[in-house]
């Protein structure tokens, strides 16, 4: 059972690292090359100057709850519940050992 627990922790660690790498290694720089910085320094008309500014409407669109996001959330909950089931089995196993006196019970 301890191996199942170790395996679970290993699985969580791998998933966490995978998610972090996905987020960190894709950057704004990759999508918008450094050339853009040079463009900003060019003389612009008043209208052009605000063209690359993100509007509050774009921010609101980014906040929308889409079906894809709900699907991702359901997958996350499925993984969490699966890991919890494994952890509960581990806890049950430990409870048995505790009742059998495997662990000390006296409070210092």
């Amino acid at each position, binding site marked *: 059972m301890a191996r199942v*627990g*170790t395996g679970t922790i*290993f699985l969580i660690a791998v998933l966490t690292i995978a998610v*972090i790498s*996905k*987020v*960190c290694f*894709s*950057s*704004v720089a990759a*999508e*918008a090359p450094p050339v853009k910085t040079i463009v900003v320094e060019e003389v612009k008309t008043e209208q052009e100057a605000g063209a690359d*500014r*993100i509007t*509050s409407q*774009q*921010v609101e*669109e*980014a*906040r929308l*709850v889409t079906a894809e*996001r*709900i699907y*991702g*959330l359901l997958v*996350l*909950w499925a993984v*969490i519940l699966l*890991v*919890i089931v494994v*952890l*509960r089995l*581990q*806890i049950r196993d*430990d*409870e048995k050992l*505790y009742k059998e006196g495997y*662990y*000390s*019970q*006296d*409070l*210092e």
Partner: protein
Amino acid sequence: MISVIKAVDERIKLGSIISLARHKLVPIHKHSVWYYLGALLLFLFMIQAITGAMLLFYYKPAAETAYQSIAEIMVVVPYGWLIRSVHHWASNLMIVTVFIHFFSTLLVKAYRRPRELTWLTGMVMLILVLFFGYSGYTLPYDERAFFAFNVGTDMAGTIPVVGTFMLEFLRGGDIVGANTLNRFFAFHVGVLPLSLLAVIAVHLILVQLHGMSVPIAVMKDAEVRKQRIYGKPMFPHFLWHDAVNCLLLLGALVSLAILVPSELGPEIDLLKPAPVGVKPDWFFLWVYQILKWMPTYVLSMEGEVVGITALILAALLIVFAPFFDRKAQRNERSPLFTALGVLSLLVFVICSIIGYLS
């Protein structure tokens, strides 16, 4: 896998740490549920550190760029909206958890000897977490943040004796502006994380040193029944329970981040008058509401100054409760301090609700 664990164990004596944790017992009784809050707080702090570091890659802490960089995080950066929302909700949940931890510790009198220092470090953590929340709230530098800067620093300015110094120190001048944002950024990513990390370390060492406190009522009950209070090992029992709790919290956190993503208010327009009903963030609503109720003058003193002074005195009474609560120190029931705890909880909840609705 097993050989890797063995190799690590050989070098850092992992086995001896586990063996120590196996001997560390957590008392089992009807109030044991409160013991889980510490681990949840630590988990939330870790989430804040990770997501905060991610946001730091893109956030530009200057008055001209801060707002747009947050908008970029929300719109352009892959999963930026999610990372920012998780950071936002984790900070709120951290403040909720730290308040529950504080009130539960106060009500079960866990500050009794020899845990006075544990309590004091906990109180420092509470203050740091609140300031963390407030400084983070202002960093988007939107309209809401601008008025939060004004309201918050104004409140600090009413503190007797040090008020004027605090006001100028926090604002970086007389008025809220670019310097204020710089200072709050420095607090949020430099001063506060380092301070909190140091205090958490001391708090955890003290918790390990003294173990978990058993409530007086449970001890008395065990004495009457002539029963012993048993304990379960921290490792693996509590570790697995903590893992389950943390996973549920993670699920709730991501759900909140996806279903209610953090907002970005309108950009600051200095020519616009302050919007009607500007309020601080929820965790300072109770202070805001109490100050709102204060009359303009109390005995020829400014009402706000009197209100802030009274709140500081009440806070000091709670901070130094371990030294005032003599009965609890003798492991006797102390109804006066229980009443004080219940009263402070009621004031916090009721004033926050009224402040929110008003």
